């Protein structure tokens, strides 16, 4: 059998038939978050929301309405809804995810991180910086990487702890937290010094090599060794080894890199190492994801393109105040800043769709305070999220099994169109999101932007102008737009959207905004005596914070533990399995959890799996189990990487003591 389901996939049925999910629309009665709800009909809920929105739009304009989601390929309808009411304020979750990577890619290549994908199938040496591929699991990718190992390929894994990926890697470097950037500088220094780079590729495509050379001159492997704790000899050995396998090598620039204040530069230098190895558009390296247009097929029609761009500027300043931040999904932490200050204009309504900012951005208490300035907070979700519990209106959306979504484009070596089709009827009163946003648009009298009555009609319109028909999706759910994988000639046919048309070591977009492209290294502060840096990550059996209450997955992993270095634990008198008290650096949040004592975590760091410590009482299984990293990140809502824009979630210190 080719396809496999991970634990989360198999637990989908348990999620579907779980009683503990939102069943009908509800309107808040008591204080926000008090859990006093009134069950209402869809008619009542939608008229409540639309009346409030009408008043807000009348008084403050459409721009006073913000919406956030978790990104993905199915956004056209709700983004169009927002644009139809005249708001530029679309956000997604990416400030707690890949924004630094996105901006790093833009600064070098002129286009974002999804310009490329990774050819694990032919890769000979894969370098991962905390990208925990066997636990932050994608099934197809995990299999390709297992096969990479099987045919003698190598993995170098770099992290503050030994993950499920580290235990399969050929090389594991447990480095000091926050020093990945120093490691990369040391590697680049070695690669340039010892002429280990792809000179032909670099000569053809790189602008600013000499600036890079000058910049890394002081960053010797010996220097990097002092910063990271990795022996200089090993850094040099590694550089030689990987150059032998170039260009079939991948330095993974990262995915969730909302970690440190310098994560943008870590990601940017990982990209630079790919460029120096010539692995761009090389088999086994990073390939350009081809679009339908690249194979002569028209793109899917998008509703968003039919609507005029809102006249108002984004409230978060992305694209105008902060020109180096992409305006598309903006930066959600800057929405909170705008909400707090009501500057440059007030935000009065916030619609949270399939997203849980109170669990993913730092400091839920600070977020709730900012939300006090909202007249309306709406959550649309198929589960009880922390944000949904705090909302004014909670609308039950259909699960992925219960709804059809807009057709999506899958870019890649073989671009394709994809269809996600409803498998079963929505349970209880859940509704698909396209219906929710279309109905709201009708009530706000902007319904004419949605000229369709059901999703099939919309699909047909999306496909107009292509040769693809709905029936073509019948068999597999996707349609490949070409038979053979498309590779471009990497010495001739590459196109970079930078001003120079080349890969820019010194990026004009950064320079013009006073941000250095090649930033002198600053050593991360050591936590003060008695403090540890709180790192978080994933488990293969839980999906971010979505599944802690899933009946099956809860049974496998009901709560998280805190990892602590064995020597540190000894000093604190903590043994494996002890109950310990963890307290945030400002003392405002505290809780107990079981300790996992191990030599496989850096002494400066402690670690917990993300998403636990839930406070929605109607989720009886997950309620109050384990601790949530986000609650310890007090004071960090507005702390972010100034170059990449993402939150610096690991700039978080905690104390630990044996619980009495």
């Amino acid at each position, binding site marked *: *059998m080719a396809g*496999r*389901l*991970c634990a989360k996939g*198999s637990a989908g049925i348990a999620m579907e038939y779980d009683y503990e999910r939102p069943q009908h629309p509800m309107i808040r009665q008591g204080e926000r978050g008090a859990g006093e709800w009134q069950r209402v009909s869809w008619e009542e809920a939608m008229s409540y929301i639309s009346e409030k929105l009408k008043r807000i739009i009348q008084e403050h304009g459409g721009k006073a309405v913000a919406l956030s989601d978790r990104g993905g390929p199915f956004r056209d309808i709700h983004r169009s809804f927002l644009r139809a009411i005249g708001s530029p304020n679309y956000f997604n979750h990416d400030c707690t995810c890949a924004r630094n990577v996105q901006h790093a890619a833009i600064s070098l290549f002129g286009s974002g991180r999804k310009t490329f994908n990774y050819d694990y199938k032919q890769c000979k040496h894969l370098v991962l910086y905390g990208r925990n591929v066997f636990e932050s*699991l994608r*099934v197809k990718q*995990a*299999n390709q990487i*297992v096969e990479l190992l099987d045919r003698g390929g190598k993995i170098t894994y770099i992290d503050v702890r*030994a993950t*499920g990926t*580290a*235990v399969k*890697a050929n*090389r*594991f470097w447990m480095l000091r937290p926050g020093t990945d950037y120093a490691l990369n500088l040391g590697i680049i220094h070695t690669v340039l010094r010892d002429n280990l780079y792809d000179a032909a590729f670099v000569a053809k495509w790189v602008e600013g090599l000499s600036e890079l050379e000058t910049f890394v001159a002081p960053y010797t492997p010996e220097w990097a060794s002092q910063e990271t704790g990795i022996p200089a000899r090993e850094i040099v050995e590694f550089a030689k080894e990987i150059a032998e396998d170039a260009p079939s090598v991948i330095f993974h620039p990262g995915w969730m890199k909302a970690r440190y204040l310098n994560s943008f530069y870590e990601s940017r230098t990982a990209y630079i190492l790919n460029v120096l190895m010539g692995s761009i558009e090389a088999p086994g390296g990073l390939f350009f994801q081809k679009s339908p247009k690249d194979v002569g097929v028209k793109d899917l029609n998008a509703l968003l393109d039919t609507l005029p761009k809102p006249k108002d500027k984004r409230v978060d300043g992305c694209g105008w105040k902060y020109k180096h931040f992409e305006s598309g999904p903006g930066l959600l932490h800057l929405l909170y800043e705008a909400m707090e200050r009501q500057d440059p204009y007030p935000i009065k309504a916030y619609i949270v769709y399939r997203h849980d900012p109170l669990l993913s951005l730092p400091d839920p208490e600070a977020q709730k305070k900012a939300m006090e300035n909202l007249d309306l907070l709406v959550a649309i979700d198929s589960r009880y999220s922390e944000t949904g519990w705090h909302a004014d209106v909670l609308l039950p959306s259909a699960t992925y099994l219960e709804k059809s979504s807009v057709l999506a484009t899958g870019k890649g070596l073989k671009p394709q169109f994809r269809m996600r089709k409803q498998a079963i009827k929505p349970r209880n009163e859940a509704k698909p999101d396209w219906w929710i946003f279309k109905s709201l648009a009708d009530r706000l009298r902007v319904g004419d932007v949605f000229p369709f009555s059901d999703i099939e009609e919309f699909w047909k319109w999306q496909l107009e102008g292509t040769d693809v028909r709905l029936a073509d999706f019948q068999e597999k759910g996707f349609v490949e737009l070409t038979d053979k994988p498309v590779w471009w000639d990497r010495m001739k046919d590459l196109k970079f959207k930078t001003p120079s048309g080349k890969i820019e070591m010194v990026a004009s977009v950064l320079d013009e905004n006073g941000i250095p492209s090649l930033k002198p290294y600053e050593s991360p502060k050591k936590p003060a005596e008695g403090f540890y840096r709180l790192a978080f990550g994933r488990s293969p059996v839980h999906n971010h914070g979505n599944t802690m209450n899933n009946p099956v997955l809860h049974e496998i992993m009901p709560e998280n533990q805190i990892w602590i270095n064995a020597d540190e634990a000894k000093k604190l008198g903590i043994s494996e399995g002890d109950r310990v008290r963890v307290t945030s650096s400002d003392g405002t949040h505290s809780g107990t959890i079981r300790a996992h004592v*191990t*030599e*496989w975590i850096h002494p400066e760091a402690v670690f917990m799996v993300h998403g636990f410590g839930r406070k929605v009482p109607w989720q009886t299984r997950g309620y109050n189990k384990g601790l949530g990293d986000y609650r310890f990140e007090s004071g960090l809502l507005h702390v972010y990487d100034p170059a990449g824009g993402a939150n610096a979630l690991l700039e978080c210190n905690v104390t630990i003591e044996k619980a009495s």
Partner: protein
Amino acid sequence: MAVGPKKVKGMPRMAYVFMPCFHCEEPWCVAACPTGAMQRRAKDGIVFVEQDLCIGCKSCITACPWGVPQWNPETGKAVKCDYCMDRVDQGLEPACVSKCITKCLHFGEASEKTKVARDRFAKEIATF
């Protein structure tokens, strides 16, 4: 069951030990069962619990040296790995095999499956 990580030549190494039932030739759980619910299937040796006959006395749980039979609090009866014999009888793989994400698990006759291991080993040591 996950064991580790342990330090092996300076590297963290984890062992993932797959512990289904051994389906013994002379299973102690079968001998311990007072009602005949625990049985060994003649045609292929699969040891299984006939749920209708199980009275939930837990004798099998105490009898098995490897702790294979488990208590199901919802039914008040014992359950154990029976290689998903309902699936096997339909020509399907046991659920754990069809489910294994990275395809580590295989199911079949011992004589057949050793060939897979021998083939792999041969490829490893072959010199040209």
